[in-house]
């Protein structure tokens, strides 16, 4: 009531500004209005610019033939395929190098992080030097350097082919390895493998139940490993070894047959992996250090053996610290894989955002596809890691 009395002397904009509620609404309306005006401005500009050079905004080009070759394809692709197919091939190549890179970077990073905590002075300092030298140099330089080394210092296929009769050939055209050739009966092995995994999951549940009821601890790890490795192996021999290896052989100037890892892929994969590993190493180190030694002592006091202390006490607590920054490193690796274009690895940016863009002149359409695809990739990685983080986080009362 008293406020009403004070507020009575007429309406004025200044009074409105001094009211907290009103002010926040005014600010928000202004922000939105500015944003809309800005968007309208750039859209009208874009329309005017496109009209001036006689271009239209359409995605029709996606179904036209791309008419360029891609040197590494995971799905059938020829130069007669469409731009859309080229984009998919590029996306798959991006995903391939990202997934391989994430796996290798995680392994390397954990090894380096543990070495960094080693009580062995020499190993500790070596890991430190490697980490510092790697992470303080641009990743693009690592990629170019590695690519340069592979292309200039490895032998040509001809030299490699005449020098040795190995089954692996490291040449400047790529790493050639035997490729597995599956025979029809191989599906039995595949089924055995799936069955073994199902069995392992079931056994794990059963072991938990037994432990809850009787306190007995069953050797889950060894039984699971035994089943997953052993069962397919037994089936493999029973089925008469339905698998043979096709070794690469020198035909003319290059190898034929077998699997090939192209130098661009190898350079990109290794460089991204060890560069990211040097960041992961520091994250892992920080995570392990963050678990206070009292936790291990408490576990020892309860009578847990060292390896179970590690797996039940230290690692679960360290993971809580490790996972969020690890997720952003995975995202960084995926985004850094776009540097592929510098060495000619045909990823998403190099296909649709590179050659397709040049050929069709559709800058806006192609760049929008590239940007949106990366956005979706990043958001899905962060969603996956959030889900995992939610699972391992501390359950509080």
């Amino acid at each position, binding site marked *: 009531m008293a406020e009403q009395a004070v507020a009575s002397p007429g309406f004025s904009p200044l009074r409105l500004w001094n009211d907290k509620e009103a002010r*926040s609404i005014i*600010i*928000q*309306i202004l*922000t*939105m209005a500015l*944003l809309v005006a800005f968007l309208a401005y*750039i859209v009208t*500009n*874009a329309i*005017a*610019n*496109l009209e*001036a050079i006689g271009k239209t905004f359409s995605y029709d080009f996606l179904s036209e033939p791309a008419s360029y070759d891609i040197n590494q394809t995971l799905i059938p692709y020829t130069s007669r395929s469409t731009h859309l197919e080229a984009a998919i091939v590029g996306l798959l190549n991006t995903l391939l190098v990202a997934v391989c890179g994430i796996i290798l970077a995680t392994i390397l990073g954990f090894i380096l992080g543990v070495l960094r905590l*080693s*009580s*062995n*002075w*020499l*190993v500790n300092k*070596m890991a430190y030097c490697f980490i*510092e*030298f790697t*992470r*303080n*140099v*641009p*990743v*693009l*330089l690592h990629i*170019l*350097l590695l690519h*340069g*080394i592979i292309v*200039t210092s490895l032998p040509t296929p001809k030299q490699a082919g005449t020098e040795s009769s190995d089954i692996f050939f490291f040449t400047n055209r790529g790493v050639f390895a035997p490729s597995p050739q599956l025979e029809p009966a191989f599906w039995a092995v595949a089924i055995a493998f799936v069955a073994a995994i199902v069995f392992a999951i079931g056994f794990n549940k059963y072991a938990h139940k037994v432990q809850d009821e009787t306190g007995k601890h069953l050797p889950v790890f060894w039984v699971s490993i035994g089943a997953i490795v052993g069962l397919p192996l037994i089936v493999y021999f029973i089925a008469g070894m339905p698998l043979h290896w096709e070794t690469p052989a020198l035909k003319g100037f290059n190898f034929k047959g077998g699997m090939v890892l192209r130098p661009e892929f190898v350079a990109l994969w290794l460089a991204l992996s060890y560069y990211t590993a040097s960041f992961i190493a520091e994250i892992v180190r920080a995570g392990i250090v963050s678990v206070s030694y009292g936790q291990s002592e408490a576990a020892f006091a309860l009578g847990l053996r060292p390896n179970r202390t590690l797996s039940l006490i230290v690692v679960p607590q360290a993971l809580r610290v490790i996972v969020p920054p690890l997720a952003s490193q995975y995202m960084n690796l995926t*985004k*850094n894989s*776009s*540097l592929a*274009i*510098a060495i000619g690895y045909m990823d998403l*940016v190099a296909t649709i*955002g590179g050659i397709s*863009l040049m050929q069709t002149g559709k*800058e*806006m359409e192609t*760049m929008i596809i*590239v*940007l949106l695809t*990366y*956005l979706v*990739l*990043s*958001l899905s990685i962060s969603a996956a890691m959030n889900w995992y983080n939610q699972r391992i986080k501390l359950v509080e009362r």
Partner: protein
Amino acid sequence: MTDTTATPSATSGGQTYEPGTHPDLPSPVRTEGPIFWIQKNLLSSPLNVVLTVLGGLLIFFTIPPFLDWAIFDAAFTGESRKDCEAVASGACWAFIDERLHLFVYGFYPVDERWRVNLSFLLLAIALYFVLYDGAPYRKYGLWYAVAFPFIAGWLLVGDGAIVKSVTTDQFGGIMLTLVIGVTGIAFSLPLGILLALGRYSNLPAVKLLCVCFIEAIRGVPLITLLFVASTMLNYFLPPGTQFDLVLRVLIMVTLFSSAYIAEVIRGGLQAIPKGQFEAGDSLGLKYWSSMRLVVLPQALKISIPGIVNTFIGLFKDTTLVIVIGLLDPLGIGRASLADIKWGGLAEEMYVFIAIFFFICCFSMSRYSLYLEKKLHTGHKR
């Protein structure tokens, strides 16, 4: 039994001795000196012995050959690759030496290079005031540091009246790296603070806008943003506008970096207890005063390591401009590989550039560690 109680003599290992007949005890275990150090740090367990041997072998097989290549068997003078190969089997540093001016200045006109040198000097002075808090007249020095990007911009580009104008396509080398890096750092910090405050604010519309901007920028690689800058940014400007490529890159790099800075600072803001915000309000401070005087000093202090890490990342990311045709040191180096006279001395070039980046980035990370220690005033929760 009676014996031992009657003569209180030293017992060891169940044996009794008459006083004075006890043999000398073994000398105490060594706890200092090089031998103990080696035992403790290198050979404390079988696993450690194995690791030490493996590490030693690795060092033995990598470091001496590298030193041979880089120093002992290297050629430091010469006119061409042939000259180098005639005198030495290792690296050919004469190549770097001859092209050093390109690596530093790019294609900046020779007569105008004093301007680049002068701006390096001005940068050093600005860094001195920003980084060293014991500097005399630091208050004025900091104002100077704020003005520095504009002064250097004027000096490097020129205005055609006082100093001759130089087009930005002649920028290159380390100078271009520093232009992009310093501009990105200088402008992304204030922008990042604004974005972080926006994301942390109570106004839903502002918050939504900032969240969308930050997440969209962080979700895509810098390289695609650079492509956007080089291919499609011109479409969004009024028809007929010609917009300098380096300027477009600077804007993109700044926007990119500010999104990351914003996330780092948001982390700092979240670590500030709610009571601090309320304390600011209860003192009657308005929003901006409360942020400036109470919240941000604490939030920024916590965020320093993250901010410096972002800056290091930004500095390394400046190399990406080669994909849109700008010539930073890496671009200059790659272009000079085609030179017939020197014929593809790629390793020398990459090692040289790697050392440059290592020195810059490593010193930044050391400085951040020092700052972290210095600012740690004991309020850590």
